[in-house]
């Protein structure tokens, strides 16, 4: 039995605060806490003095005041008498709109260019390399401006489509490409909810039906899978799934009375009326963000595909799979695990870069709350804080959602 005793208890000396590892981290944290508290006190004190000198206070009541400015591109009802808060919500929705659109198209561009860059066609792979290098090395702000000027300078004014003897006809009788944006037919509901069927509830109903169809098809596929595992034959679910998607959708659209509002060249002498206008700033921002971020995603996709061992391709070929099925069944599912984490940060980048909307006058949250509202009310601190709060929340939500997805495709190690 060993006779270990505690070391003799030394008296506490002041130098132990620095030299003794038992106390050192505590000392440093206390110093840090004091330093942080002091700087917060200093900055806060400056803030209070400056605000008092300027005769300001921190108050969010301005959000209820009428905004007094118009927003062209909007997803919900808004006019100049609406409040600043509503203008901010219009901005938030616009930010989300362009972010979602750009994420979808950027993924498309990125996968397209990334796969083609690995093509064994020399010319195609070099073209894609040039695309990636050019777009990655030039600031996105310059791309947004260039595409904005292409849209506004290279397209005709709406005037060209007007009147009986118009210079140009509507493309396919449906679309008008003008320097103010693209006019497309807009859907609306004749027997829907809300006044004249104009309520957003209609769209929620349609989306709900689509979600139900999605779950129904998942159920069908699961049953097919069980059957396949039991008998070895997979029942053909293509027709059933097609019906599950189509029939409820057609039914609900029919019940709500879907009809289309076409751009009308004859309704007005000065501008195109009717249809849905996708403004030039939205197009510029959407296209520039997707093609710029697409170049980054292309590199991620290429890296992901190259990370898959060549033996996988050869093994799949040895099993007798065709080229397309090798890609779909063997390479891409594995590459996806490598691609998704950087893809998450690219989606976050798109959301954050959409704040460049202010350069082309697209009314996103930065342009409404951080631009016009800030300048009109002079409430700089409140506006900037609210803006940051929104972006932080959005970033957090996107990364949480994508991380859940990432966890679901991750290699399940047993």
């Amino acid at each position, binding site marked *: 039995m060993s006779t270990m005793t505690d070391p003799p208890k030394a008296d506490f000396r002041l130098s132990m605060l620095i030299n003794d590892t038992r106390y050192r981290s505590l000392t*440093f944290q206390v110093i840090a806490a004091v330093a942080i508290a002091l700087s917060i006190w200093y900055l806060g004190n400056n803030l209070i003095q400056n605000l008092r*000198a300027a005769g300001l206070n921190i108050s969010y009541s301005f959000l209820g005041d009428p905004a007094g400015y118009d927003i062209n591109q909007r997803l919900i009802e808004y006019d100049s008498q609406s409040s600043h808060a509503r203008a901010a919500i219009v901005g938030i929705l616009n930010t989300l709109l362009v972010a979602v659109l750009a994420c979808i198209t950027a993924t498309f561009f990125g996968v397209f260019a990334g796969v083609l860059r690995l093509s064994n*066609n020399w010319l195609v792979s070099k073209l894609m390399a040039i695309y990636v290098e050019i777009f990655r090395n030039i600031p996105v702000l310059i791309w947004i401006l260039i595409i904005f000027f292409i849209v506004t300078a290279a397209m005709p004014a709406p005037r060209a489509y007007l009147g009986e003897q118009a210079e140009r006809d509507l493309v396919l009788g449906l679309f008008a490409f003008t320097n103010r944006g693209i006019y497309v037919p807009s859907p609306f509901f004749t027997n829907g909810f809300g006044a004249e069927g104009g309520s957003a509830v209609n769209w929620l109903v349609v989306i709900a039906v689509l979600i139900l169809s999605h779950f129904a098809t998942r159920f069908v596929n699961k049953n097919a899978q069980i059957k396949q595992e039991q008998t070895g034959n997979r029942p053909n679910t293509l027709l059933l799934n097609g019906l599950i998607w189509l029939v409820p959708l057609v039914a609900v659209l029919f019940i709500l009375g879907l009809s289309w509002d076409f751009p009308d060249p004859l309704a007005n002498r000065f501008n195109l009326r009717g249809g849905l206008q996708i403004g030039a700033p939205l197009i510029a921002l959407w296209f520039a963000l997707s093609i710029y971020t697409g170049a980054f995603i292309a590199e991620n996709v290429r890296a992901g595909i190259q990370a898959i061992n060549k033996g996988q391709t050869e093994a799949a070929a040895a099993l007798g799979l065709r080229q397309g099925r090798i890609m779909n069944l063997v390479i891409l599912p594995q590459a996806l695990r490598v691609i998704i984490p950087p893809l998450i940060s690219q989606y976050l980048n798109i959301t954050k870069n959409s704040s460049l909307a202010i350069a082309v006058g697209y009314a996103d949250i930065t342009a409404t709350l951080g631009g016009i509202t800030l300048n009109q009310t002079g409430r700089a601190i409140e506006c900037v804080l609210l803006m940051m709060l929104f972006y932080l929340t959005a*970033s957090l939500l996107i990364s949480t959602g994508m991380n859940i997805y990432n966890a679901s495709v991750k290699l399940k190690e047993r």
Partner: protein
Amino acid sequence: MSDQTTNSIAFVADGTIPPSPPPANETGVVKWLRDNLFSNFTNGLLTFASLVLIYLLLKNTLPWFLNGIWQADSLAQCREILNGNVGACFAVLTERWHQLLYGFKYPGDAYWRPNLALLLLLVAAAPVLFFDLPRKLLLFTVVYPFIAFWLIWGGTILVPLVAFLGCVAAAVAFQKLGKNSFAAGFFTAIIVALVVWNVGGALIPEGASDNAWLSAVPSRDLGGFMLNMMLGVTCVSLSVPLGIALALGRQSDMPLIKWVCVIFIEFIRGVPLITLLFVASVMLSYFFPPESTVDLFLRVVIMITMFSAAYIAEVIRGGLAALPRGQYEAADSLGLDYPQAMRLIILPQALKISIPGIVNVAVGLFKDTTLVSVISMFDLVGMIRGPILASTEWNGVYWELLGFAALLFFVVCYGISQYSQWLERRLATDHR
């Protein structure tokens, strides 16, 4: 016998047959074309589509580029010279050359100063970028920020001199005390520097800048591509040490330090740079003492530095995480304390791994300096969108100006990324 052989057998090979050349379509250009462009039907189709695309691009841009007018006073005059033909009006570049590079307020007789500063920047950056150069050159790198400040802003030489002396005093204090205790040396160095700066600042006479050899230029007169370069270089070089500190703080065992760093990094990474620039332009001045005027350039530098430091911290955290646990334990077993272990064992390896990532952040940051045009600073894009396109002479010359800006950024960013790839190959000492 032999007679019969010679008569009945028509041919006897008396040597090896020389190798015949491969069939014509299995060599040279034809073979290459078949392998790389027309290996099957789909590939042929892709090649054809690419050729059409290239043709369309060249058909639309080449005449425009080749017919470009380089000498004219206004867009109207350009159109007159072109006489209805398609052509670019590059005259805007020659006429507004100085504005594009230096902004519209920088004094014309002082253009040599930023030029010289850029030249010296190359000299100062060389020993940092290329390890084979003599280490003595790093001395110049240390002095460079003060020279550059003096060259670009002008005014009395006493200001950068006092700043330099403060740094030297701090370095000496750290050398003396930092050997025994890193913390003691570090805090003494800060105090010594503050004392020297305050005393020196008080000693500089009022109006010393009025008749200085280099005339003083206020920050708001800086502009053009020079501003982009200055913001990029300053913020990257300031944010690397800050990023290292944040990354180490995030790994720290002390909960308070760790959480402060985590919140700072995640907050900055969650918001777009534009909102931080808004903070710099409209909000930050509320946090400075009343009656102090901190100019916009400095406020923007503070915010961009914080922004890129957060991203660099994440890159370095990746490098720290990639080091095997054994390295930390080895340092502990040698009896090194935390600063020594970090300085001598952990950071050299972690930084080596993170260099490509840091360079990526630097390229991104340099591109992002164009965003300052949104808060009405006249950088290259700000000059184009503001004074040049708004002038009556050049209203409507979009492509030439934006194309020029794109070209400048492309050259710099592509150069940096090529350097990064070279460095990655150079540093790949393992897994040969």
